[in-house]
C-alpha cells in the first residue's frame, strides 16, 4: 500500500462568516468578499497572498471575480466541486490536496448565497425541462409525478429507512429538538433563543410525509469562508492551527443525484460509508476518538444512517442512539453544536465546517469538553464528502 496520505498536510487557519438571515439586503458577491476577507483577517493573512480559491456548485460567485475583488495577484489553483451540499467538505479536500502537492500556499474555500431571498429550493421544480442532457433528463423520472422538491426526494428514502429499522417521526424529531437546543444558545443562529419541544415537532405540518416542517432545514442568506495553508506556516499565524486529519469524497454503486432508489439496499448511505472508510484510514482514529460531529442535516432522517455509516452505532440502531440522547447536549457525541442547518443557517454545510474548527480551537459557544477530533459530513442522498479535523500535536 502507498505511504502517501492526505493526513496532516494542511491546516485550517481562518474562518469568517456574515450574519445569517432571510434577506441579506446585498449581493451574493458582496457576501462572498465579506466572508473571505473576514476569514483572512481571522488568520492574519493578507488577501494579496491568496493563490487558491475553491467553492462548490450552486454558488454563483466565480473564483476569478472573488480573486480580483480581494486584490489578490496570482491564482494557481481554482475549482468548483459538483453536487451542491454534497460537496460541503470537498473544497477543503481539494485545498488540502493543492497545499500538499505545492500547487498553492493559501487557499480560501467559500460559499455565499441569497438562497432564501433569491432562489428558495423548497418550492420545487415546476417547469418543463429545457435541455435534456443526460443530467437534466434525470429529473424526468420524478417531476411528471409531482416528486419535485429536495424534501420529496429525501422522504422516499426516509420512508424505506423507517420501514426497515423501526425509526419513527419522533426519532427524526429528536434530531431537530437537539439542534434547536444548541441554536438557542448560539447568538449567531437564526433560531437563537428559540428552542422547540418534541411535541412541537410532532405538531408541525407535513411537508412531504414522513417529513414534517421541523424536519427540514431553513432557507438562509449568508456566506462562510475557510482559509487553509500548510501546518508549518499555520504554527506561525494568529490562531491555534486546526489540522486536516482526513478529507474525502464519495460516490458509490448506482449513485443518483438525490434519488438512489435503485440499489438492492436503499436505506443505507454507502457513499457516506466510503467517506468514513477513507477518513478513518487517513487519520488512523476510530469513532471513540471523536468527541463531537457536524452531521449534515438538510433533512433530519438522513442524520440517522450517517451515524451508522460512521460506526457510532450499529446498523438500524441510530434510533436508539438518539432516544438515549447521545447526540444532544451533554451526550456521548454532541452533534451540530452550532444548531445545524435546522437551527443556525443553511449555508450548504460550510457553516458546519466553521463550527468544527471552533470546536477544535475550543471557542464554540457550545463547547464540548476536551475535543481532540471533530467530524464533519456533507450532503446526503447525493455524492458526498467529509472531514476529520484535529488539534495540532
Amino acid at each position, binding site marked *: 500500500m502507498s505511504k502517501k496520505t492526505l493526513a496532516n498536510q494542511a491546516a485550517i487557519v481562518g474562518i469568517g462568516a456574515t450574519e445569517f438571515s432571510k434577506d441579506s439586503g446585498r449581493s451574493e458577491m458582496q457576501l462572498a468578499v465579506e466572508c473571505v476577507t473576514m476569514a483572512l483577517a481571522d488568520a492574519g493573512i493578507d488577501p494579496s497572498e491568496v493563490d487558491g480559491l475553491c467553492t462548490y456548485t450552486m454558488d454563483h460567485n466565480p473564483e476569478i471575480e472573488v480573486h480580483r475583488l480581494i486584490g489578490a495577484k496570482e491564482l494557481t489553483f481554482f475549482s468548483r466541486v459538483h453536487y451542491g451540499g454534497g460537496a460541503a467538505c470537498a473544497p477543503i479536500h481539494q485545498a488540502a490536496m493543492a497545499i500538499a502537492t505545492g500547487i498553492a500556499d493559501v487557499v480560501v474555500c467559500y460559499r455565499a448565497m441569497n438562497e432564501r431571498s433569491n432562489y428558495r429550493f*423548497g*418550492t*420545487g*421544480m*415546476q*417547469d*418543463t*425541462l*429545457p*435541455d*435534456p*442532457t*443526460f443530467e*437534466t*433528463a*434525470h*429529473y*424526468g*423520472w*420524478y*417531476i*411528471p*409525478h*409531482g*416528486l*419535485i*422538491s429536495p*424534501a*420529496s426526494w429525501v*422522504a*422516499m*428514502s426516509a*420512508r*424505506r429507512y423507517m*420501514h426497515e429499522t423501526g425509526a419513527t417521526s419522533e426519532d427524526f424529531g429528536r434530531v431537530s429538538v437537539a439542534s434547536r437546543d444548541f441554536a438557542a444558545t448560539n447568538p449567531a443562529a437564526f433560531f437563537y433563543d428559540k428552542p422547540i419541544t418534541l411535541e412541537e415537532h410532532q405538531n408541525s*405540518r*407535513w*411537508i*412531504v*410525509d*414522513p417529513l414534517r416542517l421541523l424536519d427540514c432545514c431553513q432557507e438562509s442568506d449568508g456566506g462562510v469562508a475557510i482559509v487553509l495553508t500548510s501546518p508549518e506556516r499555520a504554527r506561525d499565524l494568529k490562531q491555534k492551527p486546526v489540522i486536516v486529519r482526513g478529507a474525502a469524497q464519495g460516490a458509490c454503486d*448506482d449513485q*443518483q443525484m438525490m*434519488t438512489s*432508489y*435503485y440499489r438492492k439496499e*436503499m436505506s443505507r448511505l454507502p457513499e457516506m460509508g466510503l467517506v468514513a472508510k477513507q477518513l478513518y484510514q487517513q487519520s488512523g482514529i476510530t469513532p471513540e476518538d471523536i468527541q463531537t460531529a457536524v452531521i449534515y442535516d438538510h433533512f433530519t432522517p438522513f442524520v440517522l444512517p450517517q451515524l451508522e455509516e460512521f460506526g457510532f452505532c450499529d446498523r438500524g440502531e441510530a434510533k436508539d442512539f438518539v432516544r438515549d440522547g447521545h447526540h444532544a447536549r451533554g451526550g456521548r457525541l454532541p452533534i451540530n453544536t452550532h444548531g445545524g442547518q435546522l437551527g443556525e443557517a443553511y449555508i450548504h454545510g460550510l457553516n458546519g465546517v466553521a463550527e468544527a474548527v471552533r470546536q477544535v480551537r475550543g471557542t464554540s459557544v457550545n463547547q464540548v469538553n476536551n475535543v481532540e477530533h471533530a467530524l464533519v459530513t456533507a450532503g446526503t442522498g447525493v455524492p458526498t464528502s467529509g472531514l476529520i479535523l484535529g488539534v495540532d500535536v
Partner: protein
Amino acid sequence: MSEAKRARVPRRPRPGINRDNSFFWEGLKEDKLLIQRCQTCGELRHPPGPMCPHCHSLEWDTLKACGRGTIYSYVNLHHPAVPPFANPNPIGLIELEEGTRLVAGLLDIEADEVRIGQPVEVVFYREQEDDDHAIALFRVTDKSAEAA
C-alpha cells in the same frame, strides 16, 4: 380544445426526452411499459443508460413489463401544493415483478391508506385524451395488503 384554452390548464411537468431514454416515452404512447435490457448479458436496468454496468455492452433492447408490482416506498406530498397534482399527492416507488424500480404517482387511493408492500398495476395516463404523451401511473389493487 383550442391551444389558448389548453395553455390555461395547469399541466404536469414534462420529462426531458433524449436518445438515451426516448424508447421509454415512445413505449408509453403505445401503452407499453418498457424496461431496458442488455442484449449481451440480459440484465435489466432503470433508469436507462447507453452502457450495461455489468458487461459494458452497448447493445440493448427492451422487455415489455407485465405492469404489476408492489410499493417499495412512498411519500405523500403536501407542500408545495402544485396544480394539477392532488394534495396531498401520494407517490410510490414501485418494484416491478421483473425486478426494476420506478417512481410513479398512485391512483385510486387516499394518501393515508398507502402502505409499503401493497400490490399495484400500471395505468397509462394522458392528461388530455388527444395527448401525444403518456406517463405510467399505478393503481393499488389491494389496500389490505401490507409488507410483513
